[in-house]
């Protein structure tokens, strides 16, 4: 569940809305690309790349307190570390779903910030 991802981020930067807006922009540019990289790496069986991209998504999801995405990314990262990517389809679906939800939530939050300024 991602209620207001910017609230968590705002707290982390001491209430500076300008910085939150910049970080949202960076996320919106980076996250869809990373999801695509995970998908491509899974399709090609590149465990190292899956592990790396899932790890990065886990880190950014934590910054937004997006716990479901953190869990999905952590699970996929473990599967990649263990070399058991054949069991990864459920994890991938969870990662993609929660990833898209976070992107939508951050997008909405970014628009609210733009309206305020």
């Amino acid at each position, binding site marked *: 569940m991602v209620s207001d991802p910017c609230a968590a981020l705002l707290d*982390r*930067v001491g209430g500076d809305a300008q910085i939150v807006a910049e970080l949202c922009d960076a996320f919106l540019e*980076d996250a869809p690309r990373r999801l695509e990289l995970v998908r491509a790496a899974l399709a090609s069986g590149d465990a190292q790349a899956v592990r790396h991209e899932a*790890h*990065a998504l*886990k880190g950014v999801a934590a*910054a937004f307190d997006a716990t479901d995405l953190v869990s999905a990314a952590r699970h996929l990262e473990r599967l990649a570390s263990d070399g058991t990517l054949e069991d990864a389809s459920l994890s991938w679906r969870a990662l993609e779903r929660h990833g898209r939800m976070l992107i939508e939530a951050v997008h909405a939050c970014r628009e609210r910030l733009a309206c305020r300024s």
Partner: protein
Amino acid sequence: MQILIADDEPVSRGLARAALVDSGCQITCVENGDAAWEAIHGRTGPMLAILDRMMPGVDGIELCRRAHRTPPYPPLYIVMVTSAGEPGDLAEGLEAGADDYIPKPYNRAELRARANVGLRMLALQESLARRVADLEAALASVKQLRGLLPMCAYCKKIRVDNSYWQQLESYLAAHSDAQVSHGICPDCFPQALESVERDGLKR
């Protein structure tokens, strides 16, 4: 002071930069381990390096190992960024040579506080290095006086190279903190007196 932020993930990188932008330090952000190594290896002054554990290219652990195989000056202080709930990462990072760690997700106040500890350590190391250099220079000067001095048996000048003989007083002044004051010892006094009287008669 320089601050290096190495993280391939832009939100974490931006959070770190936002936390440290008021530090008065020169901040460099890089997106992979190879660029981080270039910055660490080529540093020209004390550096606080905030390194993500996992990056494309050289990872944070390997960066710590490499950094500790190179000369320790200019001083380097490494804060390893680890994922929360991965205690293995933390132990591995500290064993590889990281000075501190911070788990993701971090907030601005926490990162600032840890960075300030690092900056204080760097200032201390820099000051100690300067003191050691001063002491080494002083010690080198003292050692010169402990060595074998080629001295003229008659006029007591010191030979400083093959063609130049230096007065003992000026040699001591140049190679130590000693000052020379002049007097006449009892053994030389009769001879000195005779010389003065002789000069007086000549006039």
